[in-house]
């Protein structure tokens, strides 16, 4: 159904990040917001993405924010970097989604919601690190990879899942010894993201806990956040709810804290 060759071809086809994005990230790393905004403005698609994102209702601005310099100023260093990574991930998303009932807007909404909640979590955990903030950007890559690998095999996947309860990540793991989150890690490597980002996202799969206690804890929060977000009607209807298996025992020790933070009652 899916072969290792197909995965290798897919990874090969992922373009390296552009010069503009590389420089923007570097300047953001150095805290040079104004210079970063100047460079980012050269990429019209990135500029449009930033404007679209920051003017979403979740940010709550009454008047439209148009200037990139202003946007980076509003977001701050860490969130600006995270947003640029979010943009890079959208470059991988398909023109037309087939496996999941998503589109450009709903995927971007998913990114925005995950990012906003992740920031809340990091604040709650008193964790301030722009690399850790950016880690959430890589998580939705697992959805894009699923779409890319399985969209041509929808009928096979549906037939298989009608007789056996099995998630896409497990199918891939059993067929190719590589899972969705390994592929995400390879994307992160290709784009020279921090190794910590990939480690957290690997732990967030729920099946590969990190040996680093701190990163593992963040992986737990991210795993639970993913399912909290995917439990929203729009994403259930997009058939995202069971694309990977929710590891309820993995998040058992943080659930109460999570529920309090997210005001779940």
């Amino acid at each position, binding site marked *: 159904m899916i*072969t290792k060759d197909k995965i290798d071809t897919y990874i090969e086809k992922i373009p390296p990040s552009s010069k503009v994005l590389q420089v923007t990230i570097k300047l953001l790393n150095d805290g040079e917001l104004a210079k970063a905004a100047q460079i980012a403005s050269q990429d019209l698609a990135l500029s449009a993405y930033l404007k679209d994102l920051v003017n979403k209702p979740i940010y709550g601005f009454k008047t439209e924010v148009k200037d990139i310099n202003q946007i980076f100023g509003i977001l701050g260093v860490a969130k600006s970097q995270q947003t640029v990574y979010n943009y890079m991930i959208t470059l991988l998303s398909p023109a037309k989604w087939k496996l999941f009932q998503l589109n450009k807007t709903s995927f971007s909404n998913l990114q925005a919601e995950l990012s906003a909640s992740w920031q809340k979590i990091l604040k709650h955990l008193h964790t301030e690190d722009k690399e850790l903030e950016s880690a959430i950007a890589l998580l939705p890559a697992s959805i894009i990879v699923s779409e890319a690998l399985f969209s041509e095999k929808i009928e096979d996947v549906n037939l298989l899942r009608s007789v056996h309860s099995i998630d896409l990540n497990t199918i891939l793991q059993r067929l190719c010894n590589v899972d969705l989150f390994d592929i995400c890690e390879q994307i992160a490597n290709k784009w020279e993201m921090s190794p910590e980002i990939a480690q957290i996202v690997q732990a967030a799969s729920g099946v590969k806990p990190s040996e680093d206690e701190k990163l593992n804890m963040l992986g737990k929060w991210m795993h639970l956040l993913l399912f909290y977000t*995917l*439990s929203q009607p729009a994403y259930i209807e997009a058939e995202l709810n069971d694309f990977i298996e929710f590891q309820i025992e993995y998040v058992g020790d943080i659930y109460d804290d999570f529920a309090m933070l997210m005001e779940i009652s």
Partner: protein
Amino acid sequence: MRAVVKDGMGIFTPQGFLDGNNSASFLSIEDIEATTKLNADMILVSLKKVVFFNRNGLDAFVKMFMRVRSASHATVGFCDYNEKKFKAIGNFYKDDLNFSLFLTQEVASLFASSFKNQSKNVLLYSEDKSQRAAMAIELHDNGHNPIITQTYEEFQEKAKAENAYDVIIENTYLGQMGQQVATRVTGNAIIYTVSSFLDTEIGSTFNIAYHNNSLNVGFRLFIFDAYKVVSMNVHALNFFSKLASSSAEYNATICFVGMTFEKTPIEFKETLEDSGIMFFEQMDDILQNKELLNELGASSAASVKNKRAINKVMVTELPNFIDATVATIEMMTNSQAIKEAAKVDKIEISDKENKIASSIGFYGDMDGMVMLVFPVEIAKKACELLIGEETDDIEMILDTLAELVNIVGGKVKTLLSEQGINVDITLPRTYPNVDALLEIAQDKKGVQVDLSFSGDNFLFFLTR
């Protein structure tokens, strides 16, 4: 979201959070409609992967339960929860708890009418005395050995004993149980259990689709366990007469065991005998009498008088059947499946040792049966994707092989429908050895194709 059906149990597995905002999104109108047509004995919602739920979140599923139960008489409820979740559901629905709660899917399977495993030693506890009694009766009826504990202390004490019980039941509640006629398979006979008053309701509680499927996959003896029947009225009489006539077309036999005619007119017995139904006092009168079993067709398909040859339509569509098998094996193994040789004749299996088989029937615009015979090790390899771990558990391997042949059936159905040929598929059947398969297939002519993947051989046989 759709239920995954296995062994007559349809299971929904929502994940994450269940509340009033999202629960309706899990179940569209089409999903509910499809569930009512599943022909499952039980429809359950597993809460194993649900970290949070409230009453509004469960309500959408409870509404679905009511629709399903009124449409198909299946047992409905939730399963796979911990004590906290069990108590929460109890509090939410207090006096309105008219669905069932099963601690695990294994516990639920003990109460399913199409249960496969019998004679389990079951330790049982419920705070509610009437629940304890109800569960014990159901378990006993289903062929198990319930050990009831009266107090929680006694239950805890007994539960400590290692390997003393096959299953331990607590935090379980029986709501309104399914009213379907219970079905079980013994060797090559199918036993239906009927009880109390047989009237017009039998038309909706008897699973006619299951019966037809069983005829299609080769069952020829059907026994109604009627020890608990009080009486039968004319509507039920007509139903059984028609059932006997339609089954006779397949040379199948229908028997009643333990039926008394104290409150049923004795003329009914004569009418039923005229339509071909046989009556016995004890179940063992049939099951322990090998000669009679042979005569009634329960041990061999050799008694099937009208052997049907494969026909032109089937040969024309043969590539679709092969393609479906090849595509399924390729999907499951990521290796190329190759057709080695083909012939039209009776099935020929050179080496019968360590081989298992599975079959699935199809009926509609055309009818027949696909059989797959694998060496055990190769079957494990073909099912690796579904099994996911090393196992020598033959039950598990057979179960998984049934899933594989179910996928083949699904693909056949799709490929044929693309050409305007509509068929339905039967439940898959598995055979732990070649002899069991040959009882059904040895005298049938069909197309045999030797296939291989990664150098390993297996056999495909298409027949009617």
